[in-house]
């Protein structure tokens, strides 16, 4: 298709991007540009779209790529009501609350992840390790992954079935150091 920007540049650009989803797991993208007015996920082709809607969990829904060709505002002339409706439909289909904040003791800023993207605890753990590995270091590698549930209680990740976890998890917190060791009882 229309590629104004070389792929080498795209890779360099992507490497610096904060993304949602497992790093390195984004699918090969169709270079579909997005409008410059809003940052919406790239619209996929018809077949991809329908496949995605059939299975609710889908790997690596990447954020919008930098446009390969600058889009103009308001072209093609579709009312934002219509554009928003498709977005809204997908949003309700994906269910609220699957984007959760992840905090780690000692880290200067939080991350946000989409739980729907992971198929289970192992993937989640790997993703979190990857995300926060820059903050490993002299503090040692003992940590526990906890989450705050609907009732506001701090729970250890891994005790309940995955679906139950994703529907009740409000935010994640990675506890490190001595506190974590104390908390760790049965094997994870």
């Amino acid at each position, binding site marked *: *298709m*229309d590629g104004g920007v070389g792929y080498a540049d795209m890779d360099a650009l992507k490497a610096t991007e904060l993304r949602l989803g497992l790093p390195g797991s984004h699918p090969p993208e169709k270079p*579909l*540009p*997005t*409008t410059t*007015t809003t940052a919406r996920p790239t*619209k996929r*082709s*018809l077949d991809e*779209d*329908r496949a995605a*809607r059939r299975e*609710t969990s889908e790997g690596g829904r990447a954020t919008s790529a930098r446009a390969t*060709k600058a*889009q*103009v*505002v*308001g*072209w*093609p*002339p*579709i*009312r*934002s*009501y*219509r*554009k928003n*409706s*498709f977005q*809204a*439909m997908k949003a*309700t*289909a*994906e*269910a609220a609350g699957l984007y959760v904040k992840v905090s780690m003791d000692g880290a200067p800023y939080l991350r946000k992840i989409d739980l729907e993207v992971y198929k289970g605890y192992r993937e989640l753990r790997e993703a979190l390790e990857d995300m926060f590995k820059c903050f490993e270091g002299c503090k040692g590698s003992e940590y526990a992954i906890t989450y705050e549930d609907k009732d506001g209680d701090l729970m250890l990740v891994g005790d309940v079935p995955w*679906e139950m976890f994703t529907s009740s998890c409000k935010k994640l917190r990675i506890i490190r150091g001595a506190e974590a060791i104390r908390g760790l009882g049965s094997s994870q």
Partner: protein
Amino acid sequence: MREERSDMSEDEDGGGGVEQKERWGPSHGGGGGGCGSAKSRGGVWTDPPPPFSDQVLENVLENVLQFLVCRRDRNAASLVCRSWYRAEAQTRGELFIGNCYAVSPRRATDRFRRVRSVVLKGKPRFADFSLVPLGWGAHFSPWASAMATAYPWLERICLKRMSIADYDLSLLAFSFPFFKDLTLICCDGFGTLGLAVIAEKCRHLRVLDLIEAYLEEEEEDEVVDWVSKFPQTTTSLETLGFDCVVSTVNFEALEALVARSPALRQLRVNHHVTVDQLFRLMVRAPQLTHLGTGSFGHPAALALQGDVMEHDADLVSAFAASKSIVSLSGFRDVASQYLPAIYPVCANLTTLNCSFAEITADELKPVIHHCHNLQKFWVLDTVRDEGLQAVAATCKDLRELRVFPLNATEDSEGFVSDVGLAAISQGCRRLRSILYFCQQMTNKAVITMSKNCQELVVFRLCIMGRHLPDHLTKEPMDEGFGAIVMNCKKLTRLAVSGLLTDKAFGYIGKYGKSIRTLSVAFAGDSDVGLRYVLEGCPKLQKLEIRDSPFGDPALLSGIHQYYNMRFLWMNSCKLSIRGCNDVAQRLPRLIVEVIRDRPEADDETVEKLYMYRSLAGPRNDAPPFVMIL
């Protein structure tokens, strides 16, 4: 049943609104006749009351004139003489204001004293495509206030592209005890609180119709349960449309409302209403004629939990029992296994809007096969040319077709093409209105349509890629559009696209004698193009142009025309402040607005121009980014 007003893309009766009646020449002569006292500049007659015999005549006249409904006829009648002017003003029941800034609310209410119904339009259409910055204007408040005192018997309000506050809705509800009918099209600024007040206070409400409105974003705890606010007794509701409301509604309250509204004929629910819930509503209201089906599926979360519709047969029987349904819409999240449930009503359908449903040709065919009486069909391009061929084969009485793109981007694949267009033109000879989004088109297909569909009144073709030529011959699309204006003698509205030279505009100017609305984007070579149109199209009312190489000379060539038009919009063309100033000075009753996205930029170039005739002078509510010359 009222005429389908849901779109109002073509004003019935055309011609000017209120403002047309004032003389637009340099001399504002009086209405002639009688005592010879001239009309004051304010347009208010200031002479002594007429003698007795004249009064009798006026009474007779009023009795006759009240049968005149068409506003163009009324405008003409009001110009005959003072007596007729007065009689007409006293008997006009519906006030149509095509541009809310063309006349002040006070002036309108002073002249027309017995209005029961008001239609008011605000922002220019390109506001729908994010081209008009937020806060530009079109506030309903001043009109609401003026009408609250002037028209205590007001029954009906229809607003399009206006900014409405909850407070305004509240004012309506408290000021008009006989209020019956509220229709809001592409409006914004209000929320569920406003809806709640209307529901609660308007005890005679028949119509509450929200069409593509943008409600204010509300946090969960801000959302008001407006559906519960309707009177608990039997209501007089005939139409309830809230498919554009993004927040969930209290379903139990909705079901109970439907159950106690025996006059309900039109119900359009939003996408939060699942197919199970829809079934329950249909059971309560088998007398419906127009149904907006909401999601017609389930949110995925529900489906996961297995809480799906157990009895498909029930849904089919609900449709079978709804013998009066002639219009279906919604299908926001349609689960294709439910689509066949609508078969029982297909043969009666005159309107089918599945333009939010991503269905394929194979899913469409069995449905459309039953729809022999379809007149209006809105669909997504996911059905492809093949789907359109099926439509052409069955829907011989089709009058209006809209094909929307799933992926509204320039580079998207595009699933329909010239093949679909040609097929439609072969099968649907009575077509009057078409809106078609595609990526590939040929002159040949457009020419074919121009010959087959002689009834065309509205032709809007959007080739999404900019400057795309005929994809087979690689030539500009001039000949295609030329054929349309040449062959379709009834054409009043035209939207062009694709690669177009000045030649296309030459055709439009030469043959487009009935054209009232013209939309141009990324077209033309030079000023000559715009000149052709401004000099050649006497009936032109609304002209909207973007990203085309037309400059000041072209703008000036339309001086003779602008007082006859409702508005001219141009953005990203080649206009400069000087040219616009020139026009503003030569036409004192023309409001020339220059809209800057960045107020500080002191360029000579004019990024966005909006010009319109007005009796009200420059508006006093213009935001900082609007400069009125």
